[in-house]
């Protein structure tokens, strides 16, 4: 154990159990995403304490939404609007697909199963940090009757906080390493990332704090979000929220190698 505390047997088993509960929480999120239960995810799995809600954040490659209201607008409202627009297009192309609520998400499939779990529980037991990898995919029906299936391998980094004996998601960073259509050769995609057309960036929109935090042109190995290390108590310095972002030492062209470097 990296921290220097001495724990009683009761404390140790509680810590073991806490890590199990944290893993279970993030596994539930996988199912909520597959079920298109984004609103329920924010209600059931994310922080509810007013102070935590203010400082909650959702990061992707191009920045962070901060505060649960902004997260809700992006993650639930914007997504719902996008899906309603998509259904209208499907209906226009094929009237047999009725534009009714039951058909929302028709032809959509989102799978973000996590593996390679790495969880560090704070020495004080009040917070925890976790990092997972997901060979994710998202598929959406197209007006031509096909589905556009995209591989989206990604790191998922999470700060958890305990509220009334339950673990909750506080800060999350989903850093997508690659977006590539299934059945295509991903080594043949554009050399430089196109932020105007990349579906993850387009879907993420303009966050509260817009800045490039994971650069896939050259920095698959930029170590953001970083691996959690053993820690005693939570602070901004270790946060997966925007306050914890540190510009990587090897950044952009300075790294001299990376995607499609030949």
């Amino acid at each position, binding site marked *: 154990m990296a921290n220097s505390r001495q724990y009683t047997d009761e404390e140790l088993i509680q810590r073991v159990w806490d890590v199990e509960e944290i893993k279970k929480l993030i*596994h539930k999120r996988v199912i909520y995403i597959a079920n298109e239960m984004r609103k329920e995810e924010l209600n059931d799995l994310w922080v509810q304490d007013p102070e935590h809600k203010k400082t909650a954040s959702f990061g992707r490659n191009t920045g962070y939404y901060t505060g649960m209201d902004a997260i809700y607008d992006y993650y639930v409202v914007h997504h719902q609007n996008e899906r309603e627009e998509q259904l209208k297009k499907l209906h226009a192309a094929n009237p047999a697909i009725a534009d009714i609520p039951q058909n929302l998400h028709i032809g959509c499939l989102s*799978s973000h199963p996590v593996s390679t779990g790495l969880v560090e529980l704070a020495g004080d037991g009040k917070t925890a940090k976790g990092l997972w990898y997901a060979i994710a995919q998202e598929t959406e029906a197209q007006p031509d009757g096909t589905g556009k299936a995209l591989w989206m391998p990604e790191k998922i980094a999470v700060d958890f906080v305990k509220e009334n004996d339950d673990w909750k998601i506080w800060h999350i960073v989903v850093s997508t390493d690659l977006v590539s259509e299934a059945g295509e050769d991903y080594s043949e995609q554009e050399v430089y990332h196109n932020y105007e057309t990349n579906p993850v960036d387009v879907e993420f929109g303009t966050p509260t704090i817009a800045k490039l935090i994971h650069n896939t042109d050259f920095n698959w190995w930029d170590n953001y979000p970083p691996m959690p290390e053993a820690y005693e108590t939570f602070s901004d310095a270790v946060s997966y929220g925007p306050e914890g972002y540190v510009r990587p030492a090897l950044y952009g062209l300075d790294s001299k190698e990376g995607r499609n470097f030949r």
Partner: protein
Amino acid sequence: MGKTYSTEELVSRWEDQRYMKNLMGKYANCVILNKEHEIFDRFWSKKEENLCLSFNDGAYKGAEAIKAYYEAEYRRNDLVAHLLQKRFPEKLGSLSDEELYGIGPFKVKPMSCPIIEIAEDHQTAKGLWYCQGAYNKVEGCGPVARWTWGYFAVDFTYEDDEWKIFNLMYVNDIDCICGQSWGKEEKPYPPLPEFQELADFKYPEYSVKKTIRLLYAPDRVLTKAPEIPVPYRTFAETFSYGIC
């Protein structure tokens, strides 16, 4: 968590979870090793009467039907190996039946994202896993590799100090040829006469033949995952992964 447990109980329940994760790990390894014919004896309940093994398009109910399914997998593995022996006599012709068995199929069902709940009365438990699997089978068109993405949803019962399966649902969203898009029409490989027997191979009829889960298609409506286990007191007070 509804009930508060003592330290000793927490340790015990942690070990129970570990046992069930290991059980499903062993199950997946039996599938990889083409030892489906050992699965029933090793992992299924011998005391529960209403056992159920279900897939996307039907369910086997009861011990005899479930055993018959696993035995069919064994027979199919055996048939594949013999067809390959005929096709590649220079490599496989001298192998005995025992040496030959297992050549051909490579079915990988790695399970992740476990969500396990143990009943307060400790008589049953429920588990849900995600499975980004693949199977590399020999079919009527010869060898073909397919991606299979879906769920294992399992009810366990505690008997003779061990956890055993009494309902197992294995359902997929994706079952498509590797390298192709599951969003587009599949481009099947042409049949090969030397593997025609496999196209004709039949598994036992389901006890319950019905669509339990449709595979993904661009016109499939939102299809939710098998239900997430939630804390419960007794099995009678929660849902079942068995199929009626």
